C-alpha cells in the first residue's frame, strides 16, 4: 500500500487516466474529485460492500417463493 500526503487542490495520478484531486477539506471530511475513464468503475466502499453482502444473502435464499399475482 502506498501512503502519501496531499494538500488542498493537489492531485494523485493513478495509471493512465485516473486523477484524484483533493477538492475540499472540512473537519474530518475530505471531498475528492475523481477523473477516470468511463470503463473504470468507482464506488464508495460501503455501497460496494452492501451489494456484496446482499448478493451473499440472496445466494442463501430459501426456495419457498411466495406467490405473486401477476394479473394487474
Amino acid at each position, binding site marked *: 500500500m502506498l501512503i502519501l500526503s496531499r494538500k488542498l487542490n493537489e492531485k494523485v495520478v493513478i495509471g493512465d487516466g485516473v486523477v484524484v484531486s483533493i477538492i475540499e477539506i472540512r473537519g474530518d471530511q475530505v471531498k475528492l474529485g475523481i477523473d477516470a475513464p*468511463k*470503463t473504470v*468503475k468507482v*464506488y464508495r466502499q460501503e*455501497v*460496494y460492500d*452492501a*451489494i*456484496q*453482502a*446482499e*448478493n*451473499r*444473502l*440472496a*445466494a*442463501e*435464499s*430459501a*426456495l*419457498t*417463493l*411466495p*406467490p*405473486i399475482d*401477476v394479473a*394487474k
Partner: protein
Amino acid sequence: MMGELDIDERQVIDFPDGLIGFRKFTSYALLDAPQKPYFYLQSMELAELGFILLDPFLFRPDYSIDVADEAMRSLGVMDPDDALVLAMVTVPPDGGPITANLMGPLVIGRKIRRGAQVILTDPRWATKHDVMAELAASRK
C-alpha cells in the same frame, strides 16, 4: 440449486466480471422458475450457486436505471429494448419478507447474451426492497 437441469445454450448468459462477491463465476443460465413470475440464475460452473430474480418493474413501476452508454454497449445494448433488467431476490430462510436488490440490478444484453451487475447511485434504490409491500403499494 435445483438438481439436474436441461439447459439450452440460448439460456446461457456470460457475465465477464461475474457478480459482486462472486467474481470467479462468469457463466449462468437464466431460467423461468417453476413458479411465475420468478426467474432463476443458475451458475454453470458451481451447482450450488444460484439466485432468484424478479422483474423490478413488476412491483416498482417507477423503477429506472441510468447506466453509462459505454457499459451498455459492452453488453451489446444499443437500444433500450435490447436490455433485460432483473433484480436479485433474497428469500430469508427464517420466513421473513422477501426483498429485492434494486441498487445492484442485473442488466443483460439480449442480443449477445452478456450481462453485468451494475451499481446505481440514485438514492431511491436500496439493497432491500420489500417486494410484497411495494407490490401492494403500487396497486393502490
